[in-house]
């Protein structure tokens, strides 16, 4: 079984995000980069399938030079090889362009299942997996919390409001991973050493023959407004304070 996992390098959830003064993006200085947590679920599921059915796991990532570290992390967890799509023209690419780059790379290699995270925790768009499936012309099941693969088909469980859907699909297919799918393993110390020697192909947009013209553009990034300082309601009597509070809630906070 040949499995492909798309991974994205994102700022650590605990990183302090600062928007650049000109609003063109975030200030990357001092940021710790990690693998998108939803992609980790994809890597783990791929490794489990490989361990059960044999085959290869290939990691594909679109990102600048630093993204190689994330590919290596997945290789240290146990994947076989990587494809690093690194092109300055793809920096800040929209979901469509990213998906076309991934699709072009994945088309060239055998793939029975393609995993993506259900969304990336940086831009929260949640579109790449679906666009990728369309571009590859294969079925997709999104936000999957349980997966079984047997007899050439995949049975996926997807949680929806108040219920669970059990969805069956033929292979190849795209699965987008949600929390609950599995418990991702840690890279072992010997795994890290082995990862260094595993092959990673580097490709740019020209090699993939894709257009880098974005369909969507981030116009401006703004930090959320700063929270206004709290207010202490003064007054002597409880009744007086309560009246004051109600007035503030109604007129200033406009919550009642």
């Amino acid at each position, binding site marked *: 079984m040949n499995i492909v996992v798309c991974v994205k390098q994102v700022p650590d959830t605990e990183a302090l995000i600062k928007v650049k003064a000109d609003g063109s993006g975030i200030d990357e200085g001092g940021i710790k980069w*990690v693998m998108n947590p939803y992609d980790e679920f994809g890597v783990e599921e791929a490794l489990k399938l490989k361990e059960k059915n044999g085959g290869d796991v290939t990691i594909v990532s679109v990102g600048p030079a630093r993204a190689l*570290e994330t590919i*290596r*992390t997945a290789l*240290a967890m146990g994947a076989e090889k990587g494809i690093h799509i690194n092109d300055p023209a793809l920096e800040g690419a929209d979901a469509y362009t990213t998906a076309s780059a991934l699709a072009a790379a994945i088309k060239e290699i055998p793939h029975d299942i393609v995993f993506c995270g259900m969304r990336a925790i940086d831009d929260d768009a949640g579109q790449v997996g679906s666009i990728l499936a369309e571009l590859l012309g294969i079925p997709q099941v999104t936000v999957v919390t349980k997966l079984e693969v047997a007899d050439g088909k995949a049975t996926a469980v997807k949680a929806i409001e108040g219920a669970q859907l059990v969805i069956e699909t033929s292979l190849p297919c795209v699965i987008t991973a949600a929390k609950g799918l599995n418990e991702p393993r*840690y*890279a*072992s*110390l*010997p*795994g*890290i*050493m082995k*990862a*260094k020697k595993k092959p990673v192909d580097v490709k740019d947009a020209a090699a993939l023959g894709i257009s880098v013209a974005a369909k969507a553009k981030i116009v401006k990034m703004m930090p959320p407004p700063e929270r206004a300082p709290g207010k202490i309601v003064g007054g002597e009597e409880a009744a007086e304070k309560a009246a004051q509070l109600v007035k503030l809630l109604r007129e200033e906070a406009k919550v009642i």
Partner: protein
Amino acid sequence: MNTLLSEKHRAIRKAVRSFCDRELTPIAAAIDQEARFPWEAIEIMGKLGYFGIQAPTELGGAGLDSLSYVVAVEEVSRSSGAIGLTITVHNSVAVHPILSFGTEDQKNRWIPPLARGEKIGAFCLTEPNAGSDASAIEATAIRKNDCYITNANKVFVSNGGVADLCLIFARTDPGAGRKGISVIVAERGTRGYSVGEPEDLSGMRANPVCSIRLYDCRIPLENLLGKEGAGLQIALETLDTGRLGIAAQATGISQAALEASFRYARERQQFGTSIGSHQAVQGMLADMATMVDAARLLVYRAAILRDEGKPFSREAAMAKLYASEISTAVTDRAVQIHGGYGYSKAYAVERYYRDARVTRIYEGTSEIHRMVIAKGILEEYP
């Protein structure tokens, strides 16, 4: 500091930190208070290679170099000093001497389960009447037919409560003084082998530091490590590596205290501003950061020399001496920066302060280290 490291060593640091942040840091305070050995975390660490960091991959180890080893020990100790102790004692003074002095047979028999963490190792030199002066040990292992009849009262054995395999320093030739000491490997479960109650320690409480008694224990001749009479030489060689591990451990504890202090100095407000904006606090922070970097550089230097196959004994001693001395200084200032809260178990620096203290005592006290370092240098300048 990370920029000094190769990509490989940075990857090791990152992976170890991400594991420790998720699995060790959250339990570190509880296992300290409960004096509990966290088997659940230890089992995962065994599978990930932490118990055979430098053992060759053919024998089930991770096959890493010394620099990777000190990076890993530092990171584990940054989360939990006590588990750092487990890892460094197991790797440096149990697995390492078996690899260095063991026969092929012994390596094949003992290393794979040790390297996978299925068995835990310990190093038993100290006795009630033999601490800094290791040559004063009274334990005996007298050869009789196919066995060494071993009698020993070993104290302060790190990992003692959970160890499956103990390196016992004992006299095989009681009349031969320093040249009569040998290393015998005793396995838990051997008749006459018993484990005492864990010491009620000030720090490192999650490590089951116990006494180990051997009473007329019949240990097969093939459990002799190295040659008869080579015990003190094995101890010295092993302690060189051990010191590197303890130096890394002390640095990890210091690093944790430093990070906690910077965070606290930024958050805590007094006199209408963060305490970190007061010069006196800044002075402490600057000194702490500088000491931690200097310690780490000494640790790296010794590890790199060892990886290059060059002599590293003095450098390891200096790293151990300095890193342990500054770890008590750094954790002391960390408590000071936290004020009253730093003296309370509500904040981790209280634990760092207790954990750091022993690094100046075990695997050779600071005083013994100074003696060794000075003696070497004096001999060079006659």
